[in-house]
């Protein structure tokens, strides 16, 4: 088994943990944490593929930087949404936030 495969398996492990968490968690914050896990796995996979094969290493690293930037933007927006939801519903339980409009 080559080094690249090992890195890909670790990234896959992060994806599995994130998918498990996003289904199992019952609050929006927990789901946000799971999404961050998955994005991290994606970044690790991209950098490993770029560094360990013939692919363009600069492109891989910049791609992961973009993923990190998008993760930051996403976390900002989700934070705002969580604040609005908890202000309006009094909770961030996903089972109770089930209406689009009061």
């Amino acid at each position: 088994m080559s080094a690249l495969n090992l890195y890909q398996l670790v990234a896959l492990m992060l994806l599995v943990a994130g998918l498990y968490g996003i289904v199992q968690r019952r609050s929006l914050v927990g789901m946000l944490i799971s999404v961050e896990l998955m994005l991290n796995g994606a970044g690790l996979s991209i950098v490993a593929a770029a560094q360990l094969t013939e692919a363009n290493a600069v492109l891989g690293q910049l791609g992961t930087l973009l993923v990190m930037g998008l993760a930051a933007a996403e976390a900002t927006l989700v934070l705002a949404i969580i604040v609005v939801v908890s202000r309006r519903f009094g909770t961030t339980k996903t089972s109770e936030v089930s209406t689009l409009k009061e």
Partner: protein
Amino acid sequence: MEVLAKVAFAVYALIILGGAVMAVGSSSLVRALVGLIVTLFGVAGMYLLLNTPFMAFMQLLIYVGAVCVLVFFAVMLTRAHGEGEEAAPAPVKQYLYALLAGLAPAAILSWVILKHPLASEGTPLEVPIVELGKGLLENYFLAFELISVVLLVAMSGAVLLAWERREKK
């Protein structure tokens, strides 16, 4: 050196695994956040092993420094730590569905990875930061500008969403 690299890889993989389990399994959201931070440090170690110290630095700066603080704000602003929305155990069905959702893509993807293994180069070379900067300002200029626009829009959108009008009270 080869053995040392393998030992370091195993240690980082264990750190990532432990952190991920803590992040998705802990009933307290603050502890889950600590698990996420541990995972992020493990991934930063993996970046160091891949000979990309700049990415490891950015991982710590952006993820641990910015994203985790944001998640912590989310935990605190929603009082999710006290009442414990995650404290009561979920119905067993939910755990089963979650396991299924995690394991189904894992089975397919790991089958593909193990069935068609890609050969990898021996030692990854470090890309100088100058090259990365040139890439950002020459070849991938549009993506660089667009990510700034996305960040600006996300920032102003978050402010707009969370804005509390004063005359309401």
